[in-house]
């Protein structure tokens, strides 16, 4: 009897044809059946999923290990090497004139005499010393510190400026976008390296009196001028990229929904739009670091980099050019470290892109 209650479908009706079913199809599921529907695997998030893919990429993992080793070394090494990057080696408080241009693990005559007379073992010069009798290992360590921090700080500056500029242009669109993007087009078409060289010369000279009495003096004018130059010129590609992302995201329904309930523009940008282009932003920032290190070493190599006695990998390589025939090690070491860092960062950036950018999968 009950079966007949289920109506037969009308001809041409879009309704589900109930005649194929009987009551038993509509009974509540038993506990056993419910349990079958449980998802056995742990639910995964965007981040976890990406990390899983990243871990499967041997090149990216190797790069992470190399970078961690380098960072660990430059943090730890200064605490157990008893020399400083600007210190001229001295024995018993006297300047050691024989300590210039030592080979790796060599001791100068004065040091040998000192060790013989007191029996105390001095810390070896792992990479020898430079022509001004400074321990080269610690100089390389500080050079790496400077180069890496220039890269990271510059990337963060580019990120902040590009993010703000790009999201404003992309979100508001129309005339604002048009004008802002024309400015970007013009900056983009400038020959950046020429302007960078000019600006770094100017900033170098002009900033000196300004920062002489402030805490910024520690950094030196060259370093600050380099940051200014990066901040002024390198944000454009980041701004373009973020604008493009936002243009494609802002037409989604959830943005419209947020607008309908009266959410403010700033909140929509921060809560709804930016999180959705996060992966692209992170990847581009990661790839910005090696390019900043490239530029810094290039400028330092031209003699426009950090001011002495502070040093960077580029200026170490530049200084080593003078004596490269007799002391090739001093050229090779900073050169290899630059290549290693840039290589590892590039590979890591590629790995991040493969792991997190869903559009490429």
């Amino acid at each position: 009897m009950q079966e007949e209650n289920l109506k037969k479908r009308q001809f041409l009706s879009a309704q589900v044809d109930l005649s194929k079913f009987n009551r038993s199809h509509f009974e509540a599921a038993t506990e056993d059946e419910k349990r079958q529907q449980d998802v056995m695997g742990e639910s995964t998030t965007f981040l976890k999923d990406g990390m899983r893919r990243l871990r499967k990429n041997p090149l990216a993992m190797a790069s992470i290990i190399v970078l961690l080793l380098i960072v660990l070394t430059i943090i730890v090494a200064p605490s157990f090497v008893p020399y400083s990057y600007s210190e001229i080696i001295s024995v018993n408080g006297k300047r050691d004139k024989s300590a210039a241009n030592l080979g790796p693990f060599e001791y100068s005559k004065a040091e040998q005499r000192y060790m013989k007379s007191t029996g105390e073992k001095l810390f070896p010069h792992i990479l020898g010393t430079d022509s001004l009798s400074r321990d080269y290992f610690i100089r390389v360590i500080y050079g790496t510190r400077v180069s890496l921090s220039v890269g990271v700080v510059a990337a963060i500056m580019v990120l902040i400026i590009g993010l703000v500029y790009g999201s404003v242009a992309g979100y508001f669109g129309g005339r604002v976008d048009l004008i802002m993007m024309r400015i970007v087009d013009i900056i983009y078409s400038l020959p950046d390296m020429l302007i960078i060289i000019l600006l770094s010369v100017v900033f170098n000279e002009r900033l000196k009196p300004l920062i002489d009495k402030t805490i910024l003096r520690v950094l030196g004018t060259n370093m600050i001028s380099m940051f200014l130059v990066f901040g002024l010129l390198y944000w454009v590609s980041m701004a373009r990229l973020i604008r493009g992302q936002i243009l494609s995201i802002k037409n989604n329904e959830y943005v419209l929904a947020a607008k309908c309930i009266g959410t403010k523009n700033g909140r929509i940008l921060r809560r709804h739009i930016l999180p959705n282009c996060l992966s692209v932003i992170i990847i581009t920032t990661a790839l910005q670091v090696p390019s900043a290190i490239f530029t810094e070493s290039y400028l330092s190599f031209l003699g426009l980099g950090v001011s002495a006695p502070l040093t960077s990998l580029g200026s170490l390589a530049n200084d080593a050019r003078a004596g490269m025939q007799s002391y090739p090690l001093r050229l090779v070491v900073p050169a290899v470290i630059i290549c290693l860092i840039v290589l590892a960062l590039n590979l890591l950036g590629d790995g991040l892109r493969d792991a997190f950018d869903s559009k490429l999968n």
Partner: protein
Amino acid sequence: MAKYIFKRVLLAIVSIIIVSAITFFVMNAIPGGPFNKEKATSAQAQKVLEERYNLDKPVPEQYVLYMNNLLHGDWGVSLHSGRDIWGEISSRFSVSARLGGMAAAVAIVLGLILGALAALTRNRLPDRAIVFFTTLGTAMPSFVLATLLLLVFCLKLKLVPVWSSSNPNYVLPIIALSVYPMAYITRLTKTSMLDALNQDYVRTAKAKGVPNWKVIFKHALRNALIPVITYVGPMVAYILTGSMVVENIFTIGGLGSSFVTSITNRDYTMIMATTIFLAILMVIANLLTDIAYKFVDPRITFD
């Protein structure tokens, strides 16, 4: 099309004017003038000199004067050496252009060949080796490569003589300049070639019985060339800036190495002339690249 080209040319002119203005004002903001040398000239001589080269006038007026002369084809004389700037630039540029042109040619030809090879032998040994070397190539700044080449081949092995203008040997500078763009072109060609090989028209051609080499060259490689064209503009910029250090290292008297010295000499007219000259080159390269790109690929719309 005409509208697009017009718009791009306009943008190019605006950016050249902006570059010249930035350079001019920035350059004048560097303390010290061209006549402030260690050996002090008398105040009167300095004044005469400054009057002679319009340096006593306010900076904006100097700029207008300079641009006016430039538009009449007068690049002025070098404040440092007193030589005619245009003669200086054209003689130095002929050296740089030869070096840069050969480096660009090497980069494009080798990059295309290696990229196509890598795509055709995907995941096999040649591909692996090419990927390895291109990754290495993009991680090496040109100055590192240049100094290492100089050290190994010139000074240690003595295979190549040190550069001199009477006996120019361009091999090492060309390698130093072309490795990075070559690696980049290889990567670009490989990706676009892989993409092209998966297209329907390649399958159709193969199914028709077109010989393999013809499919590769006529159907796949030709379409794979399009993205490579976009890189030509940035490559010109890279080679021009790269030549500044490479020329410096190999002591080649080109335009790049003179730019750095003219800054340290505060040689205003030389700085201006070099910047404007290089900026025009780069802007033209970018302009031609963009227009060529639209010509080659009819699918791209003009807006």
